[in-house]
């Protein structure tokens, strides 16, 4: 029975995959079927967000109930999430229309005041983490590649300042970013694309171990 189910699920996956693939090609006669499948994926994705939020709440509620280290933060998260959900529901029901001004949403204000501010602060910290990581790289392993990386980083950072006294360094920095960094990024993306193609075809062949277990 398990084998039969495995064959059935593999057939459905391969069939749907091939139909979607050929439907995406230009002038395909089955383009509408593919569009329907993609719409189904969007709906499933929306439901998955709800499941994701429930999972988050469940994980943190368990931490509170088990008294795990840092349970206080989990409690704060749990109640904050519930409060925001209730706020959005109340807002959608129009119960806050008289309280907030016209065109002002309480949840929008909360998002800007809390989420955006905190994320901006974290983004500001990111540069320090990265420079510190580069310094640590040299401490951990002094290789030619690490040395090249550090020198390039310094040149690009200094060039970014656009100090006239640095002269040619500004142009070198620009050249590194537009030619070398861009070429490297494209090479990386090409490699990822090739890996995606071969791994995707392997899944479509139905020989993946996950189909058999």
């Amino acid at each position: 029975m398990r084998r039969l189910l495995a064959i059935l699920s593999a057939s459905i996956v391969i069939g749907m995959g091939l139909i979607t693939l050929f439907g995406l090609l230009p002038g395909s006669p089955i383009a509408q079927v593919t569009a329907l499948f993609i719409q189904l994926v969007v709906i499933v994705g929306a439901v998955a967000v709800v499941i994701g939020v429930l999972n988050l709440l469940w994980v943190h509620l368990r931490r509170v109930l088990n008294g795990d280290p840092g349970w206080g933060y989990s409690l704060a998260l749990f109640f904050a999430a519930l409060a925001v959900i209730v706020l959005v529901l109340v807002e959608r029901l129009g119960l806050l229309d008289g309280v907030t001004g016209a065109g002002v949403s309480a949840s929008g204000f909360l998002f800007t005041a809390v989420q955006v501010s905190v994320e901006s602060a974290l983004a500001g910290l990111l540069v320090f983490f990265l420079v510190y990581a580069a310094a640590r790289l040299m401490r951990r392993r002094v290789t030619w590649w690490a040395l090249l990386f550090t020198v390039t980083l310094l040149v690009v950072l200094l060039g970014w300042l656009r100090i006239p006294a640095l002269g040619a360094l500004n142009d070198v920095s620009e050249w590194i970013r537009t030619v070398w960094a861009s070429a490297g990024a494209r090479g990386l993306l090409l490699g990822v694309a090739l890996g995606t193609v071969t791994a995707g075809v392997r899944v479509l062949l139905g020989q993946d171990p996950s189909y058999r277990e």
Partner: protein
Amino acid sequence: MDSTVGLLTLLFLVLAFVLLVLNTQFLRVLRQRGVQLALRRIPAYQQVMPPAVGEAVESARPMHVSFGGSGLGAETTVSALAASEVLYHLAERVAVGNEPPIISLSDPTALGLAQGTLRRAYQTRQRLGAYRSSAARWYPPGLAFAAGVGAALAEEDANMSVLVGRLGPELAFIGEAATRYDQVFIAQSDQPEGQAVGWVMSESPLIGEELYAAGAYLSRHPSALQLSQLLATEILRLVVILGIVLAAVLAVASKLGGVLSVTILIGAALAALLAAVLYARSTARGGK
């Protein structure tokens, strides 16, 4: 999709399909004759992950695997599947211990995939009773994901962190938390920004397409198809490199014209041939 791009995509897919089928048969024949394919050295898979997983089991510390922003139904589908392959092979090894792994993701469509993969790993070890669906956790995307995962790594004293899939520069926060608490940190991303951070912060990073080779490297008995996939990727890579070099040489030659262009063409062809031979030799020897 533009018609030229569509046709090229179809051509590559057909080529990949033909290569996979032919390579699989070729590798089966080699296996029957007792010949083994030498794999290119990837320290993260061969030298870092196996001992770190062993240490996690012995020290009863959890292992952390992250799918990043990879999920099902979008362009990150294959990277989510590849991440699940990494998870399966690592979870199958830690399933003998008492500490379940921590799985983090920011695309909720990957939640079911992660839970299913973890369940399969515990089932393989016949320890389904120890499986906990809450081991897979969704965090909101972006910097909130990094902050949440970084905090979880510190609180739960993870032994190793493997982050693969779609990750941006926020990877730095997680890497910093892992390094501060002396955890093994392995990172990969299909985004150049995330990959750059992963390379700097990880002692043994995975680069780009190396994620898709997980099955062949981490499996105890890799199938002919898994090895065939590696071979097909290498061949396709050579095809792309030769195509780029040829296009560049033709562009230069068309500007110069005459005897000089013929000389450049012959020189480039010889250089490409030499590079291909050297690359094949280094791959066969297992060097990078």
